[in-house]
């Protein structure tokens, strides 16, 4: 053994290389070959359609209650009935004569906040409106440039930090789901007793979708049992957590859309009936 070398010292730390040349295909190219634009476009159209419809419905400020044709239908966009607009049938929750504009604006604020902070809708509009990202493995809008959008802070700053208060909007949403349930029950009420008409079915389906959507909320799932370490020690909460997770939360996206459409359908139907455009056929 001739040359003896003394080895020593700690190994060099590995740099995690950030910001340098990354190599690979240019960051701005999209290599996906499928039609990745389709999904965000459909989502954007759906959401814009809903927003457009609800603005129109709110501006309408009339024909949201079908008491005039003997039906106890109150549009979900105007429920609870806050102003005197629905007194004709003695169906008034409030008597706010001082409220001048459409009551729908006030009411829409609550479900609006609920849906805006909903984890599913967040995904939907971050992807389709904010394009962050527009699709998986598709670059964020502006990320390859040098503009303001080249940086990204997610939900760590105001106002998006407020998304963390989603559970408070859920508390209100439960109240609203209750009110819509009441409306669905009321829709069985006819001037000459109890019955079922096509509108009744719509109101019932709407209430079901609203509940399915509201109870499938992630905040609800968390409160039911998701926050526990040992669910085995709380069998009742575990039961709720398990069923909400697998039956409702797993289909949250589906119920989000179903309830959106059922709201539109219910409002539109009420409008058409109240305005006299169509006749609501009674089934029983």
């Amino acid at each position, binding site marked *: *053994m*001739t*040359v*003896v*070398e*003394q*080895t*020593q010292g700690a*190994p*060099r730390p590995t740099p995690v290389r950030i910001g340098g040349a990354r190599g690979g295909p240019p960051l701005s190219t999209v290599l996906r070959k499928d039609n990745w634009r389709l999904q965000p476009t459909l989502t954007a159209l759906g959401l814009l359609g809903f927003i457009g419809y609800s603005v129109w419905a709110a501006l309408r400020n009339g024909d949201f209650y079908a008491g005039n044709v003997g039906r106890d239908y109150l549009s979900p966009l105007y429920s609870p009935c806050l102003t005197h607009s629905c007194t004709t049938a003695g169906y008034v929750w409030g008597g706010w004569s001082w409220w001048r504009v459409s009551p729908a604006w006030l009411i829409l604020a609550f479900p609006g906040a609920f849906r805006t902070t909903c984890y599913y809708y967040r995904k939907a509009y971050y992807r389709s409106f904010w394009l962050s990202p527009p699709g998986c493995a598709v670059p964020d809008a502006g990320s390859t440039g040098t503009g303001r959008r080249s940086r990204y802070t997610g939900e760590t700053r105001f106002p998006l930090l407020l998304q963390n208060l989603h559970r408070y909007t859920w508390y209100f949403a439960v109240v609203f789901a209750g009110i819509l349930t009441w409306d669905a029950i009321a829709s069985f009420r006819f001037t000459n007793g109890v019955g079922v008409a096509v509108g009744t079915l719509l109101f019932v389906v709407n209430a079901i979708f609203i509940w399915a959507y509201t109870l499938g909320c992630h905040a609800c799932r968390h409160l039911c049992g998701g926050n526990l370490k040992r669910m085995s020690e709380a069998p009742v909460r575990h039961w709720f957590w398990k069923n909400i997770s697998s039956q409702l939360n797993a289909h949250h996206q589906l119920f989000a859309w179903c309830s959106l459409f059922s709201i539109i359908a219910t409002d539109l139907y009420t409008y058409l009936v109240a305005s006299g455009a169509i006749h609501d056929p009674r089934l029983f």
Partner: protein
Amino acid sequence: MPEHESHVFDVVVIGAGGAGLRAAIEASAAGARTAIVCKSLLGKAHTVMAEGGVAAALGNVWPEDNWMVHFRDTMRGGKMLNNWRMAQLHAQEAPDRVLELEEWGAVFDRTPDGRILQRDFGGHRYARLAHVGDRTGLELLRTCQQRAVSLGIEVFMECKILHLLKDSSGAVSGAVGFWRESGKPVVFGAKSVVLASGGVGKTWKFTSNSWEGTGDGHALALWAGADMIDMECVQFHPTGMVWPPSARGILVTEGVRGDGGVLRNRDGERFMFNYIPEFYAKETADSIEEADQWYDNKKDFRRPPELLPRDEVARSINSEVKGGRGSPHGGVFLDIASRRTPEYIKRRLPSMYHQFKELADVDITKEPMEIGPTCHYIMGGIRVDADTAATTVPGLYAAGEVAGGMHGANRLGGNSLSDLLVFGRRAGQYAAEHALGMPGDVLVDSGQVQEVMQEALAPFGRETGENPYAVHHELQETMQSLVGIIRTESELLEAKDKLADLDERAAAVGVEGHRQFNPGWHLALDLQSMLAVAHCTTLSAIERKESRGGHTRDDYPASDPELGKVNMVTRLAGTTVTVTPEPLPVMPDELKTLFEEGH
């Protein structure tokens, strides 16, 4: 003066599978400065492929179970060729090792009262395998990996070790390797080295092993002068996938046959009825009618021949294929589609259904599977001291698949994961003890380093040399056809000649391109290890003139009680491998009585 990167540690562990990680954890906990060197990224080792479970006599499901039963099962399964002391330590310590994993975050499946659930497995008398669905290996590896990370153990990833370094006294003083990423050399000075590099499957054509199973540890030890034992004992699983190429070698569980699957040749014949050996004739059905009734009535009818022991089934498949009655891709058909309803198959064999659907696009509820024997595990390996895992070279330790003796001639399912933990820990413990008891610095000879690197880089200089892929292919073909599951003297001798030829070809391979992450070059280097293993296996196989466990000789179909008392020891004499039969350690009488109780 040194141009290469160098690091010094008390203990260097080569291999980051279960055994390597467990050894490193133990060495580090004992206060030794420890490093792990591995060929792949951390957490990718072949341990993830283990599905069944960890065998440990916890007694959670069967309170009757204890280490003595486990010990006896292991020795029986190994055809008594095991190192009795290893089998004993293994059976005694496995339960503690499993509980320890739990303390590090492993989440095993549970019994109704919240303890670790255990499942049945072939050769184990009681339900004994702690498991997590069918991904127990992943759980074990991840748990050890996370433990090692939290202890701050240094990990050198994607670094291949080429040679062990020795000092003037003949003790191991480190290792030299290179970064796969850059092709640059790196030298480790170490007072102890633990080999935990896993298996050798890539030497055969059909194997369930990953590219890493090239027998690096076996070769390093051999070149460093360590003894190897029983390298002929290789376990071939009778049913591995043979088609498509993507899935070649992947295991098909025995459960398929247990649940009604039958083997057919090209002509649709249930050929197993032609191969019932005298020895099993009493307990095996000899007509299709009888065999088919067994599934529902196991008491009054005899077992179908498809359920004969692994070596028998593999041998029969082999002769069908050799007789030209095989399937189009060189296997036979395993058919359950025509025998059970799709619902039944999907319920009983969900992972097999999924595996064939995903990998082969074969719907096993509609079509038969094509299967053939696949190289699975090597029972033989580096000779170690049972208690300390020390090899015959001072400062060198070995644990896991790379070490021999624990499993004898045949390994029971579930015993490999527990082997990793028990002997990984022991190797780490004694390697640390050895290192910490050695005062002074580690000395590394630069001359040796230079030499090793020069040799490693030689293929770049041979632009016109043969493609290493071609040589590897040839080696696999040779081993598969001549040193495969069924062996005979003439074929083994032919293999020996071919290997000598391949040695020369491997020494003359050329690679193109650059040193950075060049797989052709890496293969050229791995070839050396695989050839070393191939030599050992072939020589020992020639010498063991009997059939025992994983080693089946056509010309000596019975086992020879005399040969059952010896290990086939292979070691390097100069530059050639020699083989010597040497006696097994003798089991003390109080353990011998365990085998006499008539169980």
